[in-house]
């Protein structure tokens, strides 16, 4: 059996150490927060200028001046702080975040990431903070399905989509397996519903086992 999105999020959360400073980007990766001890064990950073971000706001908690990177209203946690955008991205680019979690269109065996632009001629390009997160955090974790809807592998020898960051991805969490990337080699950490050999065949990649 492959893993559900929620199981992938839980697996990512399990690999985030207590006390880590973490950025969960926007979209799917933000669900990792549901599996973290936010505000106590883990401190969330949001690119729009806050450390110690709390959960989504509900009811009267909603304040248009307090949102996450996806523009969703959130709440504070004790010990949080606010700062401006240049300071926020200095924090990211300067390597102070322990972990960031991103979605991806493709990841290459060298750890190159493509997640900002399909390259389609009619697509409106929009990068946001993706390139800053890709190169800034000490560890970059990717959450994605291992295959596109048409069955095409998303873990690839070389990117065909436009690059977000080079050699930046450390771990890839997918429905079929978790992979660790280092020095141009891919190691299968665990698999779900397939063996490592079967995945190596489908991906057309050499996969190491731990």
């Amino acid at each position, binding site marked *: 059996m492959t893993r559900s999105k929620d199981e992938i999020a839980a697996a990512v959360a399990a690999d985030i150490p207590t006390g880590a400073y973490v950025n969960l980007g926007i979209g799917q990766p933000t669900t990792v927060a549901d599996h973290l001890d936010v505000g106590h064990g883990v401190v969330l950073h949001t*690119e729009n*200028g806050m450390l110690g971000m709390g959960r989504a706001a509900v009811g009267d908690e909603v304040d248009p*001046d307090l949102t996450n990177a996806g523009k969703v209203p959130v709440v504070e946690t004790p010990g949080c702080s606010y700062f401006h*955008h*240049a300071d926020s991205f200095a924090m990211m680019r300067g390597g102070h975040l322990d972990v960031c979690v991103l979605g991806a269109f493709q990841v290459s065996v060298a750890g190159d990431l493509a997640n900002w*632009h399909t390259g389609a001629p009619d697509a409106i*390009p929009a*990068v946001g903070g993706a390139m800053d997160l890709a*190169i800034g955090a000490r560890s970059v974790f990717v959450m994605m399905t291992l295959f596109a809807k048409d069955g095409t592998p998303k873990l690839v020898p070389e990117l065909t989509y436009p690059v*977000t960051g080079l050699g930046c991805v450390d771990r890839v969490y997918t429905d079929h397996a978790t992979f660790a990337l280092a020095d141009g080699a891919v190691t299968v950490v665990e698999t779900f519903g397939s063996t490592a050999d079967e995945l190596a065949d489908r991906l057309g990649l050499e996969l190491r086992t731990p």
Partner: protein
Amino acid sequence: MRARVCDSADEAVADVADGATVLVGGFGLAGMPFTLIDALIRRGARDLTVVSNNAGNADVGLAALLAAGQVRKVVCSFPRQSDSYVFDGLYRDGRIELEVVPQGNLAERMRAAGAGIGAFFTPTGAGTMLAEGKETREIDGRLHVLESPIRGDVALIAAHTADTAGNLVYRKTARNFGPVMATAAATTIAEVRDVVEPGQIDPEVVVTPGIYVDRLVRVEAGDRA
């Protein structure tokens, strides 16, 4: 020179010229200077280059300025949002130019303009199509791209409270680009919910020192979209 408290937003933006580069604060709607943008629409200055994180949401604020046909070019990090239909339409019709800049480079390039830094090497974007045509250099084994300052003729920002010396404090994540843009423009105009006397903002908590603020406009909380 000291900040001038304007009687109206219209007075504050009365000299924004055609062709100006306008830095517009906000991240989505938080920190967006709605009142000043509305005044800029009434002012009617055209052929503007707007530098902002997004390219407008729904029909308000920056989106309304785009809809009014006053903007020639948008420099931003993230134009594509669920409710950015005004920009999307103009862009697909070829009626507006777009320069996409990684969000941290956008902030840092404005910071460089304000801080007198001529250019800087950043790893963000290096090796990507957003660095095409730009000088690159490997520093400590890592590829960097050389980025230049982004200066504004005018910055329109929203803050929470000002004193008449021009000192500003912000509120929560509505702070975002405001303090950086205030340093990067020849003229900075801030809309604020309250204006107090010098000394009423603790000097330890000032976020934007008054030296960066030229004009203030007081807006009612209810003025916000």
